[in-house]
């Protein structure tokens, strides 16, 4: 009995030793940075000169900053857009590809996943060209139907964010499809067969039999999508740089701009801390909701 306890203690110590390097790195690169960001957020500081403590003033200013809230709204717009143009098509495609009689599944999976492995700088530039009101593909297609009035998707304050969202969806749906396909392929067909015998149609089967079985994957994808959408940066930088008139401003780009372009490190840090708090709140609320359902 004593020997068993000693073995357990040794294993425990070894476990701690093994996770220690990762813990130290985590503490240095995450915890320390986080504490530093919170500290910076209470300063008026250009990132190089004298630091002046301003307490919570940066946060109070942020709450009155229309561009900041516009960016926050745009991030949610982008998130919901990606649910529609990324997650939903990914789910449907995965379902179709998971059907037993589908051939060339690997080929389709590779093709659809391809946009995900391209740098945002590249596909952002490509889509910028596609949207170009003079020579872009979309303009040319519209011209085929005799419309001579070219339309600048990215030059219009009302449509620019929508244009970026479609681009984001295009690169995201393949990633979702791969995750959902893996989930669908692991399902037990017996449930579907019994539902079929009980008289369920395809739609009922999809919503009441298939989807509940992949709910853990679906939840993971949804949480990941929200987090991913709040981290989007390079796509906006390449396509619009936040314009026109801040209509495509998003949180990460706004934070970067405040800290590095406008030399307002304190203010930028405060925005970053608020973004972190939003994400933590979202994750807690979402996990609670999902947990309650389960």
């Amino acid at each position, binding site marked *: 009995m004593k020997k068993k306890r000693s073995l357990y203690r040794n294993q425990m110590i070894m476990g701690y030793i093994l996770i220690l390097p990762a813990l130290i790195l985590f503490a240095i690169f995450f915890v320390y940075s986080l504490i530093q960001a919170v500290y910076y957020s209470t300063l008026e500081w*250009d*990132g190089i000169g004298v630091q002046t403590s301003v307490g919570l003033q940066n946060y109070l200013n942020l709450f009155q900053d229309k561009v900041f809230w516009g960016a926050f709204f745009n991030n949610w717009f982008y998130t919901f857009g990606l649910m529609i143009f990324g997650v939903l098509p990914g789910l449907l495609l995965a379902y179709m590809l998971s059907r037993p009689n589908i051939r060339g599944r690997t080929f389709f999976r590779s093709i659809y996943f391809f946009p995900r492995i391209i740098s945002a700088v590249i596909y952002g530039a490509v889509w910028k060209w596609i949207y170009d009101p*003079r020579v872009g593909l979309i303009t040319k297609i519209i011209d085929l139907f005799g419309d001579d009035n070219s339309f600048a998707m990215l*030059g219009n*304050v009302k449509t620019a964010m929508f244009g970026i969202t479609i681009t984001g969806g295009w690169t995201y749906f393949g990633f979702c499809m791969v995750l959902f396909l893996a989930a669908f392929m692991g399902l037990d067909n017996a449930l579907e067969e019994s539902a079929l015998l009980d008289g369920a149609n395809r739609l009922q089967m999809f919503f009441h039999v298939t989807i509940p079985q992949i709910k853990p994957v679906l939840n993971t994808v949804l949480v990941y999508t929200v987090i991913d959408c709040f981290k989007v940066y390079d796509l906006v930088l390449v396509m619009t740089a936040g*314009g*026109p008139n801040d209509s495509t401003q998003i949180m990460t780009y706004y934070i970067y701009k405040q800290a*590095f372009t406008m*030399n307002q490190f304190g203010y930028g840090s405060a925005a970053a801390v608020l973004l972190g708090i939003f994400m933590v709140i979202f994750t807690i609320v979402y996990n609670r909701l999902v947990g309650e359902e389960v």
Partner: protein
Amino acid sequence: MKKLLAILMASALSISVLSSCGTGNDSGSQTGENGSPGKVTLQLWDTFVDGSLNSAMSQIISAYEESHSDVKINRVQKELTSLGETIKAAFMAGDAPDLLYYEGGIGTVGSYVKAGYLMDLSEAYKTYGWKDKLMSACWEVPSVGDYIYGVGHEMETMSLYFNQDIFDKVGLENPTTIEELTDTLQKLKDAGYTPLANTMGAEWSSNMNFIGTILYAYMSQDEIKDCMENDGSWDKESVRKAIDTIKLWIDNGYFPDHPEVHGDQEQLYFSQECAAWITGNWEVGNITKDTDFKTTIIPFPGSESCEDGGSQVNFAGGAFLVNAATAYPDESLGFIDYAVATPESSKVWYEVGGTVPPYTDEYEVEANELGEHVVELLGDETLQNTAGINMWLGTNAFEFFSFAGQNLIVGSLDTDSFIAEADAALQKDVESKMTKGSFTFE
């Protein structure tokens, strides 16, 4: 064609006297290292990542190292944005290079000057006689009061470029005022051409250069000085007229379709789709190389309403800056002297780099007709050559003007809101003491 260019432009690019300020405190760390006994290695960061300017810089460094066997230049090239991001950390960590080639405007490097990271070169200007050998923009832009923190380089000027073949076909004369230019643009449009190749998408330079050029056509030297040096309000009749003109040009369709989305201005002009282009001499090389029509370059015409006839927008593309904490100040300054104030390097900058160096004494270069003309424009004392707005603006004002053109096009700004927002941005810069008029050292 071998030309001997008599480039005597010491009094050109007059930008008036700058105001106030004290001295900075030296801080930072020693960065130079001895590569071998008795040999000094200077660390240099620059933004000539590729292309002709990169080749020119490499040649100049090689030539300098050959003639100065005791000095080695350890060069690191960085994209402008990347340099801006990393230099801050480098200064704070005491690991900044001895020499830096970066933007010299106060909006970009003002915080480094304020914190005492950049060396005061006032004495060096006297020692090396730079004020007698270089264009005045070299020190008038990178300076606050008597504190000169850089040596400007890559002289650029905004002008009106137009396709002479199209102008001849339509029967147009060179416009001598901006009012005449408006008539000319209308005639070009009536003749079926897109008059201007300029676009103003989400690219700061397209917005800033264009708006700055139009502003200077209307603003007198006194008004420019008031706004740029003394934190004066933008609410001026001349500014209103300039913005109204831009709005008129937008409304009349003188720009390519959808200029609010970044377009390829070169392609628009080179393909002869557009007849005229308000741009700078950095395009001369490409125009010479890539077009088979005749381009005429004229000073940008001022307004009839401007009491002194308007001014020309000039830039120093960048500036050599010295780390205040360098262990090798003499060697650093010696290299700058060689790189910008000698006939040998000027020849390389012009012929290999395709840029106009600030050196004002005589030197021999191979120059084509357009290039030679640009040098003449830069040296023409009658033109009121004046540093462009991006050379003066503080951080917030710079940000505003970076998107102002696009916002005018999409209708997010009108003349009143333009002036109100420009003044609001100026006010923020004044509060942070990051303008020429309000600057103070920490």
